């Protein structure tokens, strides 16, 4: 067990290093940075949905909250180290409260979806209506629909004038993603992660075995919120402006689509789905023949209908089948897992 964990970490690092070296030759680092950030956002939902069975319709809320926290704190402090920390802690804390309210209230599937959706909408509506000058936190005006521009972007800790931007910022984001990925892997290997999987499969059984289901789901939800917040803060630094659009329903929908397309219940799937679809959207945005939204919608429908497990598991299966290792016999087991996943 221990040995395989080490091996996996090594593989992850090698693949990541290869990608970080290779990708800037194919795509500009400015675009790549946002793909990496979206990858992290996809991973955050992939963790709580794919491994915790919590379908959150409002992952964008934590993303936006992270971005706004960073922007507001950066304006007030003028240095980026503490704001980055806050941008993880505030969304995580918010997710903790929200999760505690939902999971101790024993809300499940659709009702969970409604609450997370509604909370995102509340934030969206509220931030949108804060254009008046008296809405400010410290010296940061919330700015309503126009968002907050002109905050201090990421700098070397302790030196507010040494900005990290351009290529360096890409490498920083990529490294952060690798770190978060390893952290998630470690979390899932720990007993906490195994219990989370158990809860996803059968909540009643786990609670009968003596595990505090509500507490564990809440903590997992908060971790997902924290990762989304971190992605939000990185996004704020990349875009150098935060707008209420970060909280929008469309943003939440996209995160869900990334996870579905990439593959639920895998760690790399959501990252791949996020980066791949975001890049596709970027390419599609350069033509005006077919509307972008139409294609996104079509992809989601087709995936739910024909490839509900997502790209990565399907590819893995195809690969296994093509080398003819049918002794794995994984098929029925996987199918059962998926059904209870959504039940």
């Amino acid at each position: 067990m221990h040995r395989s964990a080490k091996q996996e970490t090594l593989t992850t690092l090698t693949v990541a290093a290869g990608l970080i070296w290779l990708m800037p030759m194919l795509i500009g680092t400015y675009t790549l940075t946002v793909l990496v950030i979206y990858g992290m956002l996809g991973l955050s939902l992939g963790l709580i949905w794919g491994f915790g069975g919590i379908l959150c319709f409002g992952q964008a809320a934590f993303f936006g909250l992270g971005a706004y926290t960073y922007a507001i704190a950066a304006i007030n402090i003028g240095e980026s180290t503490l704001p980055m920390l806050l941008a993880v802690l505030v969304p995580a804390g918010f997710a903790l409260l929200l999760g505690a309210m939902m999971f101790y209230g024993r809300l499940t599937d659709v009702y969970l979806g409604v609450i997370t959706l509604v909370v995102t909408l509340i934030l969206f509506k509220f931030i949108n209506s804060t254009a008046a000058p008296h809405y400010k936190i410290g010296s940061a005006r919330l700015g309503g629909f126009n968002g907050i521009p002109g905050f201090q972007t990421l700098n070397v800790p302790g030196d507010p004038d040494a900005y990290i931007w351009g290529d360096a910022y890409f490498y920083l984001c990529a490294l952060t993603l690798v770190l978060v990925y390893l952290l998630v892997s470690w979390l899932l290997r720990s007993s906490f992660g195994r219990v989370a999987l158990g809860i996803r499969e059968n909540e009643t059984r786990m609670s009968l075995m003596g595990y505090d289901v509500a507490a564990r789901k809440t903590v997992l939800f908060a971790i997902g919120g924290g990762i989304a917040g971190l992605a939000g803060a990185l996004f704020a630094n990349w875009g150098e402006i935060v707008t209420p659009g970060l909280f929008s329903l469309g943003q939440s929908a996209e995160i869900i689509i990334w996870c579905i397309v990439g593959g639920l219940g895998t760690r790399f799937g959501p990252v791949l789905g996020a980066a791949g679809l975001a890049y596709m959207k970027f390419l599609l945005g350069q033509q005006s023949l077919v509307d972008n939204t139409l294609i996104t919608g079509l992809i989601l429908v087709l995936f739910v209908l024909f490839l509900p497990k997502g790209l990565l598991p399907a590819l893995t299966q195809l690969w296994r089948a093509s080398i003819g290792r049918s002794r794995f016999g994984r098929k029925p087991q996987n199918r059962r897992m998926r059904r209870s996943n959504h039940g």
Partner: protein
Amino acid sequence: MDLSFVILIEMLYAVATLVLISAGLAVVFGMMKVINLAHGEFMMLGGYATITATSLGVNVFVAMLVIAPLIVGLIGLVVERLVIRHLYGRLVDTMLATWGLSLFFIGAATMIFGNTTTGISTPIPGFAVGAYQINGYNFFIILVAIALVLALLAVLKGSRAGLIARGAMQRSDMAAALGYSPDRIYMATFFCGSALSGLAGAVLAPLVGLVPTSGGAYIAKSFITVIAGGPALIAGLISSATSFGIVSQIFTFAVSPVMGEVALLVAAVILLRLMPQGITSRFFKGKL
């Protein structure tokens, strides 16, 4: 005196709007346990159908009450055949697939009608109550909502088709054994639900500027209203629409329209926390 009359009308209007925008979703969810997240886009399409029909010279009321529901119902029929019938019983998957459909329709409408705001003027003039001006069209919406609820009641409780539909929703195997095809019944129900969405979109079209993304404004509210209503179709719809409508109007008048919207959402969160299965899981149990 005048003010309280105006507030009363506004509250009735808010409740009626909620009933109207949620009815289509409630029928589909209450009967078939399918959450149609493309509901808002069905409403948007209803609006476009009305505008297109009136610009072709059809009477506004005919366009709103007949043409739009028919067209959207037919679109719903196609959607049901192509997508939704493969996903019955998989609640989360239908939600995701219909979310994809909603994006698809937004894209399609953008390509066909362009990303600009269109609209038609309200066909009923406003009038004054004391120092206040009331939109006469609000009364029309209230009337349509009342007629809609009565018609739903009449069909589901009074008619044979409603009885068969309700039976098939409870025990589809029994209905099949008695010689009714559940597949057809689901299809017909989805057609009715979509037609109701189209009607709602058409009736509300004169009040809003229509853009391809305007469905998004409705879906969250109707989704919340239906889920908070709970298992009983009509009782749930009316009770949750009434509570949310009143709460949002109180805050609209006391603070601001934005706070009204926020209050509605907060009320929904609190309500679901207290009654996780919706209002009718605790009150009006076993009602329709």
